[in-house]
């Protein structure tokens, strides 16, 4: 029997994704962003999160999906991974749900245009929805970013 995991459900386009609740600090509405020059294009800038300066990543940009204008539904999910504290900009964050770790299956090669290494797997919820679970440490992996920068340069 696998263990129950609570996940935050959010959307990018049509697809629904999940991040474990323990990794998430808060979910915020859109707030004024201060642009940081000369960073990766998907780093949108920094925000003041109650006195702490936190960098924001546009998850669409990070996964190479087309970026969209922020709407009323746009949310910032502040995640903690190791020493890093980063905000993800997502189309909407709708729900908290339970899944069973046994129900997480290995991801197919590409899901909704996102490479498999950023994904932990695909989970089926009780409601029959499909949730794509993110592999946070890979999404925040800096070694790959350095390579990216070098390729651009």
């Amino acid at each position, binding site marked *: 029997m696998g263990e129950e995991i609570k996940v935050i459900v959010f959307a990018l386009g049509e697809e629904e994704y999940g991040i474990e609740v323990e990794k998430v600090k808060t979910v915020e509405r859109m707030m*004024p962003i*201060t*642009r*940081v*020059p*000369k*960073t990766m294009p998907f*780093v949108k*800038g*920094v*925000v*003041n999160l109650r*006195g*702490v*300066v*936190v*960098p924001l*990543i546009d998850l669409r940009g990070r996964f190479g999906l087309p970026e969209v204008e922020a709407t009323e539904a746009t949310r910032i999910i502040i995640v903690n991974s190791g*020493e*890093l*504290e*980063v905000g993800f900009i997502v189309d909407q964050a709708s729900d908290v749900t339970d899944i069973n770790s046994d129900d997480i299956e290995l991801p197919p090669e590409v899901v909704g245009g996102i490479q498999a290494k950023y994904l932990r797997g695909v989970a089926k919820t009780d409601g029959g929805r499909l949730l794509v679970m993110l592999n946070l440490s890979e999404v*925040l992996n*800096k070694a790959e970013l350095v390579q990216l920068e070098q390729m651009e340069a």
Partner: protein
Amino acid sequence: MDMNAYLSMFIDESQDHLQALNENLLKLEGDPTDLSFVQVIFRSAHTLKGMSATMGFEDMASLTHEMENVLDLVRNSKLSMDAFIFDVLFKGLDALENMVGDITNGGQGKADVSNIVASLKSIVDGSYLSRAETAAASAVAVPPANAAIDEFQLSVLKQSMDSGLKALRIDVSLVESCVLKAARAYMVFNLLEERGEVIKSIPSVTELEQEKFDRSFTVIFVTQQDGEELAEAISNISEVAVAQAELLDAATLEQLARPEPAAQPARSASTAAQSAVVSATESTKANPTARSEGGRQAAPPAASRTIRVDIERLDALMNLFSELLIDRVRLEQLSGEIGRVELTETVEHLSRISADLQNIVLKLRMVPVDSVFNRFPRMIRDIAKSLDKKVELVIAGADTELDRTVIDEIGDPLVHLLRNSLDHGLETTQGRLEAGKPETGTIWLRAYHSGNHVFIEVEEDGRGINTEKVRAKAVENGVLSQEEASKLTPDEINNLIFAPGFSTADQISDLSGRGVGLDVVRTKIFSLGGNVSVESKLGSGSKFSIQLPLTLSIITAMLVRLGSEKYAVPLTSVVETGILKREAILSVHGNRMMSYRNAVIPIVSLSKVLETSDFREEDEEESEYIVIRKGDKWAAVIVDDFIGQSEIVLKSMGAYLGSTPAVSGATILGDGQVALIIDPNALFK
């Protein structure tokens, strides 16, 4: 009684006492006749003994007890200090420091101090002097008999014997007329190392290298070869008079490892003999009558009322205060908008109080640089001894205060600079005499306040930097081109030694090692928001200056606007602000320049550097500019608009972003928005 509650207090106090012991012993070494230092040393040692015995650290207590015995004799003028006693006492202090370190890390403070204790005992019974003499005398004629080995060496020897190797004791004597003794010894070692492994040499290899031996030395050696053959091979080296190899068996080894207690000090004395005997007689002469106790007793330090506070609490206080500061700025903004007199007055009062509070909070975190400087005299003494140079360290301004975060980080770069000065800056005693300089070199370590900065200088009266060699080296290493190199002033060239290209192993002879790690020093200082530079005059010495900010957490900044974006420029690098008409912009070789106080300085477009989207300075008839400077470089930075001056709290942008070009951090403005802090140094090309 639960000792754990007292442990941290014990550790803190032991460290204080050890530091005091170190300092006073150094002072005493400078003036061995001043018994008032001995009083202070004795008291510290005595307290330390009592404390460690109470806490149950037996080894520590017994060592301090023996040290106290020696000090007691000195105090009562029954014994006069000499180099040997100083060395043993310093060794004792090192051992004590290790023990306290061990206790700090949760250990039991156990250490084998029998060597030091034996030496101390021999001092007390006065036997070390005669032993030193006889040992020194016997060393001339025959190889020293006491080839004692420690436990580690014993175990190595035993293991090799178990695996079928032979342990040999080889006594080598050089001919009387031998001039290059160190070189001959080196040849012997070379030969030996080809055929086996040297376990121990008496005197030590360092002493052999420095020719600190008479004509003979002894080597304990592990090999597969035959002893006779080896001895013959060694005899064949020119100027070697006799070489004897003796096969050691397990029993002899045991004996060597456990000599009679008295033999131990004799051995260490024999190596120190030459220097000890000479300086012992010297200091005896210099100390005809002991001063009475009340004569010149060091004034007891003024007891200041202090409490120890956990650093984390201070940090928490600082963080909370930063939050308060942000709210204060916000309140000021709001009251300005609302414009009610009572509100404005209240907010102004609040501002004044919080300014006072800020001063106090910042002062709480200030620590005198002495807490870093105090370990340097000892370090310099040790390095000077190992390099065989005579050095005097002159410290000034040790009471200058710096933020604790800076203090914590500044130690390593300073150690580096001091080592550099001692190792490469100062000439050898011989070299100094030839250059017509006093035999003893001087290193000055100064700290002082100036404006919003603290300066720390390391200066030495050594050989100075050979600018031309640095220039050639810089071109060779590709740090800059021949053309660029010829344009630079000597000072600019000298500062190239901080460039990373100089930290290669391939060095110029009389500049050797000068650049090793200096780029690391610079990187560290830069990361503290400071700067480091060097001035040097060939033949008369070099001066390294470190400039550091007083504090790292709150700075005064000039807020500027670029279109819709706001940025903060640290006020420390702002020289002047002004307005520039478009027609006043000059074009020199395609670079935009402006004339400023009889000089022409480059114009930097901040909007271009930061790639702003909604501000184009080309559209403006008049541009606001800020003149910034870094050393003797100046530049005018074009901005959209000035907002004003403000106290800002430095915030990190988080680990994910790492370092971004031209931006040194972020701050939160009164309106809750994040503004980036510009790194003015990055705006200079």
